[in-house]
């Protein structure tokens, strides 16, 4: 991915100035961002008028309702639309200065990225595409934009936020617009929403911000992108209504995520609390804790025009009115999907990891406790590998390594504790004695949190690890065979990790060169051999994927893959519950989930199939039942 620069970005702490200066004058300072694309921002009501008068909406109203009465569409738009007002931005700016200085030690921002963003907003409509790890993501982004005198983005938010009295209105006036969750086949709603988004993109007065992952990642692992919004923002380009679009990937990472325990409990099946103002007030106590630093990396703007070159014919709308409602063509869908995946990959690559992510990875492999000195030694070893694989680490050079690691771990005392030279996962307190099942639950939340932080770093290792696993399952060293097995894994994990569709060879190449970087393999023209010296690396990398592979289970000979629900693992295989692969509940929706795996894979990759036979349970009983209803449920800004 040439869009990604490997030079080390320099980060600036925006809170430093807040701690020195007055929050009031920060909130009241002159704020006059140059309007995007040189277009003066239309008033919210003018914008809504443009939407309601659009030919597209009129087509749909007529088609759906049989008359041209636009009242219903107007009501939907009223519910949805933002009402950006500078006063509220200032108010929010003031409040956030107070809150953020309490929550975080530092908010690190790469200024070069902001300069590029500033440049991009002058040229073409900008789509801000942050990853989504916490409720505060979008607040932080708007806060940064305000601080740097950039146009406040228009943000796609989930409708539950709107329901919060007062807060919802503040968000709306700070540029959020609200999207219902279960839109389903409500054509009119889709039409209003898509026309609204497209109108904003077309006029280009402010960046559009949305979470391409669709929802907050409860596991801190990147999610495969959702395509709805992606199509809406790309359409103005595909239809020639704008010359180009800049997709700006934004990677947000936290030393410690505000809602970490909430996330763990959600994954364990405790329902997510409804977003209410009262709930928010109750959650005040999160303000009393230390969340370390957060990093916001603004990636290089990706030109959609460049992405589209040779991949998609823009003449596809030449023979129909462009306003005509219709599904995007297969070509457009494939293009949008590839673009969205690419952005998520860029988000991953831009993510700054805390040392704790590496430590967490190791802690998980020793769930029954380990010696601190060994853990520290291995973390350092892992740091070496991670750096060779191109990871971005927030590892202060001016402090002794041991101090870096211990302070990074100390921030997570709710998860791990270091006592008498040993590191333990924390168990939740509760009345003694406990049943075996309760015991699992008590430790589960710490394990899940640990796994989540591990997940933040996972993307660094995925591809080399897949090559490592593939090497282990191939009898010889033929690159071709390894590649075939690699592809099998790639298909298998298509919903687990983010792979850009159609980029198998590049992924393989990346994995191989990563391994070569670490000195773990030597490559000749047609062969890929592990080196003797770095056998540990291969074993270690394979071990990273082990739990993921184990979570997939083959039943019978019809070659169907079933997912283990979390409950199955918890109830029946406590001993095997080394680390849970928390994402699983997401997929155990009613009706079960079948990852797309070609049947022929069985023949190609028998080894992988037969490795995962640890379970002693009749397949029939691992019915994919979710613990507490579907977990794809709602979240804050999508």
């Amino acid at each position: 991915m040439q869009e990604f620069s490997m030079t080390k970005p320099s980060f600036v702490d925006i809170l430093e100035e807040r701690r020195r200066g007055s929050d009031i004058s920060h909130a009241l300072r002159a704020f006059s961002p140059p309007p995007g694309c040189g277009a003066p921002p239309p008033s919210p009501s003018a914008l809504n008028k443009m939407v309601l008068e659009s030919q597209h909406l009129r087509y749909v109203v007529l088609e759906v309702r049989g008359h041209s009465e636009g009242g219903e569409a107007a009501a939907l738009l009223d519910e949805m639309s933002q009402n950006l007002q500078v006063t509220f931005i200032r108010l929010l700016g003031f409040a956030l200065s107070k809150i953020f200085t309490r929550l975080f030690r530092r908010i690190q921002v790469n200024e070069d990225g902001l300069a590029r963003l500033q440049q991009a907003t002058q040229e073409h409509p900008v789509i801000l595409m942050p990853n989504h790890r916490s409720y505060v993501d979008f607040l932080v982004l708007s806060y940064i934009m305000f601080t740097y005198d950039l146009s406040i983005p228009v943000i796609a938010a989930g409708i539950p936020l709107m329901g919060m009295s007062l807060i919802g209105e503040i968000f709306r006036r700070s540029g959020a617009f609200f999207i219902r969750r279960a839109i389903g086949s409500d054509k009119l709603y889709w039409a209003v929403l898509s026309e609204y988004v497209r109108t904003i993109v077309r006029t280009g007065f402010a960046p559009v911000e949305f979470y391409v992952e669709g929802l907050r990642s409860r596991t801190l692992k990147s999610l495969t992108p959702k395509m709805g919004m992606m199509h809406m923002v790309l359409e103005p380009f595909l239809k020639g209504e704008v010359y180009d679009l800049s997709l700006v990937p934004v990677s947000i990472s936290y030393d410690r995520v505000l809602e970490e325990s909430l996330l763990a409990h959600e994954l364990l099946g405790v329902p997510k609390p409804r977003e209410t103002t009262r709930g928010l007030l109750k959650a005040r106590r999160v303000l009393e804790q230390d969340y370390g630093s957060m990093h916001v990396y603004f990636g290089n703007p990706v030109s959609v025009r460049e992405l589209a070159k040779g991949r998609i014919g823009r003449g596809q709308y030449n023979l129909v009115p462009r306003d005509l409602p219709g599904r995007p063509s297969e070509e457009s869908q494939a293009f949008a999907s590839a673009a969205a995946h690419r952005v998520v990959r860029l988000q991953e690559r831009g993510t700054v990891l805390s040392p704790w992510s590496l430590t967490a990875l190791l802690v998980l492999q020793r769930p029954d406790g380990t010696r601190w000195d060994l853990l520290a030694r291995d973390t350092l070893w892992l740091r070496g590998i991670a750096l060779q694989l191109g990871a971005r680490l927030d590892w202060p050079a001016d402090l002794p390594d041991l101090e870096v690691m211990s302070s990074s771990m100390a921030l997570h005392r709710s998860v791990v504790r270091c006592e008498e030279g040993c590191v333990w996962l924390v168990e939740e307190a509760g009345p003694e004695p406990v049943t075996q099942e309760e015991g699992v639950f008590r430790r589960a939340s710490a394990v899940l949190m640990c796994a989540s932080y591990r997940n933040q770093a996972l993307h660094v290792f995925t591809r080399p690890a897949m090559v490592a696993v593939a090497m282990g399952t191939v009898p010889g060293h033929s690159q071709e065979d390894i590649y075939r097995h690699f592809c099998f894994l790639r298909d298998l994990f298509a919903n687990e990790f983010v792979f850009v569709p159609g980029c198998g060879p590049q992924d393989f190449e990346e994995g191989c060169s990563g391994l070569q970087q670490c000195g773990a393999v030597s490559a000749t023209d047609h062969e890929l051999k592990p080196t003797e010296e770095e056998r540990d690396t291969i074993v270690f990398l394979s071990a990273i994927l082990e739990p993921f592979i184990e979570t997939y289970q083959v039943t019978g000979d019809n070659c169907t893959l079933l997912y283990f629900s979390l409950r199955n693992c918890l109830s029946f295989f406590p001993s095997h519950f080394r680390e849970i692969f928390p994402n699983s509940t997401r997929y155990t929706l009613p009706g079960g989930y079948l990852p797309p795996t070609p049947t022929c894979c069985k023949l190609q990759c028998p080894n992988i199939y037969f490795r995962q036979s640890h379970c002693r349970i009749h397949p029939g009983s691992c019915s994919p039942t979710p613990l507490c209803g579907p977990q794809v449920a709602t979240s804050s800004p999508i």
Partner: protein
Amino acid sequence: VCVCVQDIMKWNGWGYSDSRFLFNKKGQGEFTGKRYRLSGMILPSLKDWFEATFGTSLQHKTPATPTLNVSAVPPPNLVEPFVEELKVAGVAASHDPEGRVFRSHGHCLHEIFALREGRIGRVPDLVVWPNCHNDVVKIVELACKYNVCLMPYGGGTSVSSALECPLEETRSVVSLDTSQMNRILWIDEKNLTVHVEAGIIGQDLERQLNESGYCTGHEPDSMEFSSLGGWVATRASGMKKNIYGNIEDLVVHIKMVTPRGVIEKSCQGPRMSTGPDIHHFIMGSEGTLGVVTEVTMKIRPLPEYQKYGSIVFPNFQQGVSCLREVARQRCAPASIRLMDNEQFQFGHALKPQVSSIFTSFLDGLKKFYITKFKGFEPHHLCVATLLFEGDREKVLQHEKQVYDIAAKFGGLAAGEDNGQRGYMLTFVIAYLRDLGMDYYVIGESFETSVPWDRVLDLCRNVKERIVRECKERGVQFPPFSTCRVTQTYDAGACVYFYFAFNYRGLADPLHVYERVEHEAREEILANGGSLSHHHGVGKLRKEWMREAVSTVGLGMLQSVKEYVDPNNIFGNRNLL
């Protein structure tokens, strides 16, 4: 041999030898000669505009080779018996190198650029001047007999590489110059038609008809030099098509000589249902099927009254909306054109020195009114130029209707003078390219037609694409990339682009230019524009023909060619 236009025209540039732009010793722009309204005038703002727009300096000159180096012209490849029999038949012919070079090119940038550098490529081996239809019949017969390649030549104003001799052509290439077939054969006042030999040049046709109180009203920008036969062969479009129609609307009857014989209809009925209109095989055939020798055209009585006009809009978008509304109400004047801001400024640079303090005071006042009082942004405003024709009363009524529509889109009437200057610009702009080429600036125009709803998007995207492509290809200074909407139709508009840049520092400026033009065309097609509105395909745009008309469509055209001209006597290789 003949009295030829070649004697009064440039051999390596546009138009008359006596008319050209130059910067005089004081560095002021000047237009020489006596033929145009602008001739002999000083243009005080041209230099500043020129230097600011292209980043050029008058110090850095790239003068053209002054005279044709005759020895560089390849010797003619003649088929002696063919030449002999021509002589016997009494057809004028010559293999004089200057005449051959003159007919070896149109006015594409690369053609003129090469000539200025003294580079001569493949040129016709012989020029023949038929005097009438029968001469053409004779020439085509002989060409078939001796397998000689014929290339019809009318006014030589092609901008589609249509006149370039195909490099792969090994036969003797004969340029068939129609300039001597330039008589009006009859005028039919009862039916308002005129029967003309196809070699007549536009301005001559119009002048002669005017003497009888008539006109065709067909005025392409090239009408000073282009020929009737050329219009038919390329599907030409005239500035005043809103009243008179394009060439396909004007033509009543066509006679064309092909290797298979003469093709024509048996009557002059105004419309027929006799299968596909065979005229449509001829119009746009670009010289690949035969030579158009005689045409019957509609004529109209000369209009009683003509009035120019102009409207200033706050921005291009408003202007386009206004033109769209005018088209919707079907009340377009004879001509209505909308220039973007860059072209508006360009027009200003060509304002001659004002004669009195009073005029300059008035100009200042106008500017003040528009920019300060009306709040038009000088870098966004754009101007529409109008031409009304007809009865005096109707013209005034019509004018009011159009200005009322314009007012709804924020348009302000900006006077007759601005309008008239706008139209004059179209005749002198081709001369300006030669000036640019004296100072490291190369450029060209190209056009398209596009549905109304895409006009704005197409204009923006194509202009931007040009700017980006230039930058990527190492052009040091932002290019001049501008457009205007030149024709309105019920379902869309014709858009005309000018594109020029300063090529200092580029190793292969022509290549850069060609790539950028190519990308611009790709952009046009991607935005729903057509391959050409009136310039034609020639050899320059052939690569997109299949995409433009579908494989079956192309096959249909090919099968016509195969039947009419199986031995490819008309071998200019245009279109297909």
